[in-house]
């Protein structure tokens, strides 16, 4: 089965709000692509970035499209391929590079690396490595939001593989019983490391799991920014209305290896070919041109601007100092 077949394409016809989403979304997706390319294909290979590097190449529409639908009070629990939402929330690429390089300028001041970053003031929760551990935590965040009388939701992100974990089940189930305002966002990129979805689960779609919790679940074209954004709006409307969680399964594809050291030879070539035609960035650009929202010249300018921004950010990060070893013991407890 090809996941692409399942997807209903976004109907098209851009209202002005959508045009705005398209413009902003294109910028953030391009920025995410450029930052991650720089990390995975340059800095990592230069040995300037150590440890594991996981990027969201091809999946940019998911984190960007959903977070553009979020209010600042909404709390985001990104997974490891969701860098876009940090930019949407105002984190600078400079701080992200510093994070990856283990510098004090990073969001964890060198304590942790890569996508393990968060900022409570920005309502972003830092993941831990264990897949799906953020799901019960997202449920608790939503419990607090309701407790505090906020009209806000939690967005909890994870991959297809993460849905196999017990924590995923416990977190979704508890949220469903409590009818909590959580939007569960699955990026189904067909693989968990080297493991294809059919070795991960017995059902065809992650969305098939919604009924097991009595919650609505929807399959979304995860490579269409506007489709993701619209689905996120439906999802938050549901969650905000007190009707409980909502599950969005964004079908997409990991257009790279699992991590920077993985050549992904296990992925059949035709899957690559099929999905590279669906790359969310050119796809959005085509649509914008089609709809007369922008010209190729503007896109070229945008990409140049993004590259310059990224150059500057890398320079800033490289100038950020390493943490002082004398701080090693600080902040284990208050």
């Amino acid at each position, binding site marked *: 089965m090809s996941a692409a077949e399942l997807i209903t394409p976004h109907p098209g016809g851009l209202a002005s709000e959508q045009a705005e989403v398209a413009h902003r979304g294109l910028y953030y997706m391009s920025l995410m692509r450029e930052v991650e390319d720089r990390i995975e294909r340059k800095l990592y290979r230069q040995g300037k970035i150590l440890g594991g590097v996981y990027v969201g190449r091809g999946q940019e529409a998911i984190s960007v499209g959903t977070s553009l639908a979020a209010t600042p009070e909404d709390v985001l629990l990104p997974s490891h391929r969701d860098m876009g939402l940090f930019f949407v929330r105002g984190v600078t690429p400079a701080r992200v590079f510093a994070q990856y390089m283990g510098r004090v300028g990073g969001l964890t001041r060198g304590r942790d690396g890569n996508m393990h970053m968060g900022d409570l003031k920005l309502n972003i929760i830092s993941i831990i490595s264990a897949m799906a*551990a953020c799901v019960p*935590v997202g449920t608790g965040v939503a419990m607090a939001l309701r407790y505090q009388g906020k009209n806000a939701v939690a967005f909890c992100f994870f991959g297809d593989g993460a849905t196999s974990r017990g924590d995923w089940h416990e977190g979704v189930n508890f949220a469903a019983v409590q009818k909590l305002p959580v939007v569960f966002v699955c990026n189904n990129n067909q693989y968990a490391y080297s493991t294809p979805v059919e070795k991960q689960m017995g059902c065809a779609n992650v969305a098939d799991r919604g009924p097991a919790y009595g919650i609505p679940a929807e399959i979304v074209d995860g490579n269409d920014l506007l489709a993701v954004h619209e689905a996120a709006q439906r999802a938050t409307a549901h969650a905000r209305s007190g009707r409980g969680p909502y599950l969005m399964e964004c079908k997409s594809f990991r257009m790279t290896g699992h991590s920077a050291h993985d050549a992904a030879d296990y992925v059949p070539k035709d899957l690559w070919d099929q999905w590279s035609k669906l790359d969310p960035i050119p796809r959005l650009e085509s649509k914008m041109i089609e709809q007369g929202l922008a010209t190729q010249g503007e896109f070229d300018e945008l990409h140049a601007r993004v590259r310059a921004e990224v150059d500057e950010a890398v320079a800033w990060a490289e100038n950020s100092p390493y943490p002082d070893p004398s701080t090693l013991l600080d902040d284990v407890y208050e």
Partner: protein
Amino acid sequence: MPTTYVEAIREGLWEEMERDPNVLLIGEDIGVYGGAFKVTAGFLEKFGEKRVVDTPISESAIVGASIGAGLMGLRPVAEMQFSDFISCGFDQIVNFAAKCRYRWNAPVPIVIRAPSGGGIHGGPFHSQNPEMWFVRTPGLKVVAPATAYDAKGLIKSAIRDNDPVLFFEHKGLYRRIKEDLPAGDFTVPLGKAKLVRKGRHLSIITYGAMVWVALEAAERLEPEGIDIEILDLRTLAPLDRDAVCETARKTSKVLLLHEDTQTGGLAGELTATLTERVWEYLDGPILRITAPDTPVPFSPPLEEAFLPNAEKVIEKARWLHRY
């Protein structure tokens, strides 16, 4: 009127919930039923469903949801129905809760209550003492009160603390011990041991239910002229190493006592602390009295042989006194 250990915990929870609207309870059967040990009986009626949350059988979700709520500024108190089930929420505790502050400066002000300990014929899965899994995990605080006063004072401090606190309450003490408690609000600080008996000849360092075993042994040894000092650790992490060293410096002989099994138990950590810091003061080997390295057996004669008791303490104390 004297207050039992279980009632003391209940009062502490109740008063903290009255004091701070951010405190809430999460756990299995804690609402309508009032909890397996009735610690939260009446809480649902008083504080409502929002603040007394009955959960599915999902220890990982209980802890995880507490972490999420804690990160958002609430102060959840999670209940494990038995401490034996804490292993079902283990990753959330040791990897999520324990490391947030260190990694990204995010406080996780949660308390995980866990009824632990043996002597109630609970068998291998309703009797365990899992404290060392957490004592050895940086970022967690671990508390194990022995008295009603400390139970109340420590549960309050744990709730007010801005770090994740594991609160091990000993089931065997719930209704067995009681004392008069002062009226009004009081707390017992985390991280401070308490000298519960002064003595000259020999120190017993212990915690939890074993404090009472130590006291019994000390009383029975008094007529023999053996004068025992007893230190109740109260908090296991962070450990009050100063108090540990102080009593050892004073008596020069140390018995370490815990209900937990031996290998990897706290006694080892205490021994290392002592040999590192007060080596020159010691007049004899440091001895351990602990449960042996087996699961907790069910049948009464086996469980009796398994648990430390005053008899076993007395025997070793005599030996060490003579040393």
